[in-house]
């Protein structure tokens, strides 16, 4: 009963840890795609800048500033693809870019197929891993959404969680085609900028902020803030749940060990009479507690991966190929050891308080 309880607690803690791990590593991946880039956008908008609207001519003006590397920067239009639906209930994000400047958005992301739209048809697209999964697409296939067809020329490798940043859930196409299908001719959402040689991000930010006070320059720091804000509340909640489960496990084993000590009162008395030291009795109780929690813990750890995969499949994921991260195994193992040791301490202390004379009389 105790082992099953510990196993269930370890399983819960493990699954929560995995969820947090996936969330953090996903967001770190997303953050990596923003690394070194700056977004010039309308005041009060955020990332992704789908809510920002600026004119293409203003975008060109920004691109021509000396602090901006115009060869590595581009006007970009971010707009949800009408009629699309991703697995998590969101929408595919269309990212319209000037062909040849895809690197401003894609960065170092590995692409299967072509990583540039230069020389491709108007409807050619490079899609993120989530988008590929949603439409079951391969390089060379065609996606049709709302009577619009898109020819897939490249698929980006998964880089993040796809939430709330968009590279995995995006569909990169030429700016002109994006403007065309979203009916936003002459408009863009942002200018994705890379500082020109010799200029820092701060210089670019200061220069553009003073030239265009009604617009924002969104940097990696802002992205980090967005991520931190989103993570903070979730982490607090998850950690509270873990602490609760941790406490339940401790009480569970402690209770079992207290009963065990009571049942073994006579044996403890015999051992003390035969010359066993108090410290050895304490170690014996803690050892038993550790064994109990370790058995439950090992079974729990072994079950984390299949249970997490099963949950993923039940929630609609396909081709779920999850490998339990070593860091999560280590975290859970440490928790199990702490639970085993500390829940054995009080019963061990009480066992030491038993007088051998009383214990020998105990029936």
């Amino acid at each position, binding site marked *: 009963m105790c082992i099953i309880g510990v196993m269930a607690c370890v399983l819960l803690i493990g699954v929560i840890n995995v969820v947090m791990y996936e969330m953090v590593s996903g967001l770190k991946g997303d953050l990596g795609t923003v690394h070194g880039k700056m977004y010039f956008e309308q005041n009060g908008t955020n990332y992704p800048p789908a809510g920002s609207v600026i004119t293409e001519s203003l975008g060109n003006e920004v691109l021509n500033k000396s602090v901006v590397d115009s060869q590595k920067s581009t006007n970009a239009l971010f707009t949800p693809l009408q009629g699309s639906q991703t697995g998590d209930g969101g929408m595919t994000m269309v990212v319209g870019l000037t062909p040849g400047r895809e690197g401003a958005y894609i960065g170092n992301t590995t692409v299967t197929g072509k990583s540039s739209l230069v020389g491709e048809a108007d409807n050619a697209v490079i899609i993120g891993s989530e988008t590929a999964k949603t439409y079951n697409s391969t390089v060379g296939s065609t996606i049709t959404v709302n009577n619009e067809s898109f020819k897939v020329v490249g698929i980006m490798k998964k880089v993040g969680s796809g939430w709330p940043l968009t590279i995995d859930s995006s569909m990169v196409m030429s700016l002109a085609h994006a403007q065309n299908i979203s009916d936003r001719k002459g408009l863009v959402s942002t200018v994705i900028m890379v500082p020109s040689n010799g200029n820092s991000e701060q210089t670019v930010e200061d220069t553009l902020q003073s030239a265009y006070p009604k617009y924002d320059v969104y940097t990696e720091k802002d992205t980090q803030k967005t991520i931190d804000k989103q993570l903070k509340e979730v982490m607090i909640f998850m950690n509270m749940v873990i602490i609760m489960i941790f406490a339940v496990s401790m009480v569970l084993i402690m209770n079992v060990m207290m009963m065990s000590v009571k049942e073994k009162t006579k044996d403890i008395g015999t051992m003390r*009479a035969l*010359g066993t030291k108090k410290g050895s009795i304490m170690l014996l109780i803690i050892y038993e507690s550790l064994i109990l929690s370790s058995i439950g813990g090992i079974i729990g750890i072994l079950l984390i991966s299949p249970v997490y995969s099963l949950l993923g499949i039940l929630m609609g994921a396909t081709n779920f190929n999850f490998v339990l991260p070593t860091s999560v195994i280590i975290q859970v193992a440490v928790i199990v050891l702490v639970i085993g040791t500390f829940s054995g301490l009080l019963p061990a202390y009480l066992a030491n308080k038993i007088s051998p*004379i009383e214990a020998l009389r105990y029936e």
Partner: protein
Amino acid sequence: MQNLVNGKELWKTYDLGGVKVNALRGLNITVDEGEFVSIMGPSGSGKSTLMNLIGCLDTPSEGELTIDGREISSMKESELTKLRAEKIGFIFQTFNLLPALSVRDNVEFPMRNMSGDKKLNKSARRARAEECLESVGLSHRLNYLPAKLSGGERQRVAIARALVNKPKFILADEPTGNLDTESTENIMKLLHDINDGGTTVIMVTHDVETTQNTRILKIRDGVIEPNKGD
């Protein structure tokens, strides 16, 4: 012959909810090396209290008690624990074998409590445990759990356990109290054999028949009654 146990003017007073109860009232006792002593007395006479003192499970409230030349009244608990492990072999009425351990492991157990030069390695401990079990005629039961043995066999395992650390004396608390006549005879023969081998035996008993060929000490109201003719 050297004194093994020497108690002078031993008092043991318990505080039972504010009421002082004197379990021993200036008791004097001497047990020499190689003796077989039987302690007899009615319930409440102070037998168990005396056994606890001689067994170093407790210390007297007043008086001097030396065990193998060492005064125990002022000893720390850790010192008493060491003394029990090294000098005393315990035999209990209810056998008190550890139920989760095999016969061999039960006998080996007290050797784990030894320290310093007296601490043996695993194989030496096993060999010594098997030797002791053979001496009580149980070498065919090494891997049995205590629950699978008869009462007489269990007590023989307990005797082997008491002998394993080569103690100065064996303290037997009603060793035949839970046994039938045949087993009682066997156990008493074993205890006499051990005593003949040079180990002192101190036994508490109610059964007069088990006291043959032993020095009998009768305890009443917390003191040893003088022998007739003393």
